[in-house]
């Protein structure tokens, strides 16, 4: 396996404990919180039925409301459902910065070793980028796998008279958070996460600017990130562009920013980076 691959593996391995904790937290919070709410609801239903002498769920439904959907039950179980998603996103955003800074921290500054490896220094960049993308997509895939599990739990616990099932795809399409996490079409997914990838490279370049020039570098980094952000947003301010034109313009700018960030990072790692 080549050196980039080995570095990527190191990056994946270094974070696995935190990552596993994020996955576990998501599972426990979503499944656990959802299960708890479903059970509490049914306990309430059974208590009411006992008190009023209903024998079927249909009778219960006629007096109280029934026929809530999976979507509604998920809303009742908030923030246990969306909370972990937000936390994982925050953790990953933090790690986009920390994946570099951790190599400079403490007294065992690993960055010495990494910069002295007999390999293109840009491989460090690629390895970290690969790790971030893998972790993010892994979280998304994990969430995709969890949703049918939650739906199954819903169908097992809530009887059909009281709970309307739905398709996972419709649920995702109509949920404010999940529709962002899992875009409706595959090209939409590529655009979303492609933009994320580009943003990560911009952040990486900014971090490297800071690490190369320290205090001056901090201003430079903020300036660079702001310039890239402005470049991405600028086309939207023109009302003369048709939607398809706007898309291709932003696509082009995105590719350009990606290329510039990678090139800048290569240059900094080769000539300006300092331990």
């Amino acid at each position, binding site marked *: 396996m080549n050196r980039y691959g080995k570095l990527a593996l190191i990056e994946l391995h270094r974070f696995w404990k935190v990552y596993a904790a994020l996955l576990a937290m998501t599972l426990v919070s979503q499944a656990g919180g959802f299960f708890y709410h479903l059970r509490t609801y049914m306990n309430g239903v059974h208590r009411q039925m006992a008190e009023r002498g209903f024998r079927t769920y249909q009778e219960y439904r006629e007096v109280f409301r029934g026929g809530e959907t999976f979507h509604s039950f998920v809303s009742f179980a908030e923030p246990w459902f969306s909370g972990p998603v937000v936390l994982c996103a925050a953790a990953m955003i933090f790690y986009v910065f920390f994946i570099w800074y951790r190599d400079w921290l403490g007294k065992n*500054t690993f960055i*010495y070793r990494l910069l002295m490896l007999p390999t293109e220094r840009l491989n460090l960049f690629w390895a970290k980028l690969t790790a971030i993308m893998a972790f993010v997509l892994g979280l998304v895939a994990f969430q995709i796998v969890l949703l049918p599990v939650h739906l199954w739990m819903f169908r097992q616990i809530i009887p059909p008279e009281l709970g309307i099932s739905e398709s996972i795809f419709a649920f995702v399409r109509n949920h404010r958070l999940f529709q962002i996490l899992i875009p409706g079409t595959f090209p939409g997914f590529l655009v979303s996460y492609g933009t994320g990838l580009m943003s990560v490279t911009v952040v990486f370049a900014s971090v490297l600017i800071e690490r190369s020039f320290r205090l001056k570098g901090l201003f430079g980094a903020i300036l660079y990130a702001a310039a890239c952000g402005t470049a991405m947003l600028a086309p939207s301010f023109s009302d003369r562009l048709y939607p398809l034109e706007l898309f291709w313009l932003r696509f082009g700018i995105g590719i350009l920013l990606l290329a510039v960030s990678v090139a800048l990072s290569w240059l900094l790692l080769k000539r300006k980076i300092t331990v």
Partner: protein
Amino acid sequence: MIEAINLTKKYGRRTVLRGLSFTAEKGRITCLIGINGAGKSTLLKAIMGLTPVSGGDIRIDGSPIGKGLYEHVAFVPDTLTLPPSMTVAGSLRFMGDFYRSWNPKRAAELLDFFRLNPSDRISSLSKGNAAKLNLLLGLSLDTDYLLMDEPFSGIDLFSREQIASVFTSDLIEERGVLLTTHEVGEIEHLIDKAVLLDRGEVRREFWCEEVRQNEGKSVIDVMREVYQS
């Protein structure tokens, strides 16, 4: 031969290296001597491409420094620069994974010699053991040159003796060694060449044996002369 030609380096407004030039020959042990802040560490890092220089040139065997440098020059920094959760065995695997010049047999021998436990975590190593592992990682690379930054600083006496004994063994024989220290006394007998630094400049560069024979001075004598003038 490692050549530093007119090196300058600035940290903001502070000039750390001022037009500094010296050479370190292959097969010899060269020592950079100076008080803290004289720029010794910076110099080694610059040679290893770990920090950029503002001006001047560095050449290793006539070529400028580049990616291929690291299979020919090994660096032992002043701390063990490895992740705290990595094990001793893991660090050897790491080196073996990336360096063609890694010599696993020698590494195993040194592991024995230094009596290091492969399953120990980096974070749990004593200062002495950390320094030994650090040296092990540098020595186990079959490189032409070896750079060491303060290899004896803060180490207990027994570990120091162990490390010093390595210097006289065949592990060092054919290589060029460039090391820094601010405590010359203990290694004076080991070094071939001394480069005295003061405030970013070379004050004096000399072969120790020559000076001892011709001027009857020890390195410390020369140091006293140079720094107190």
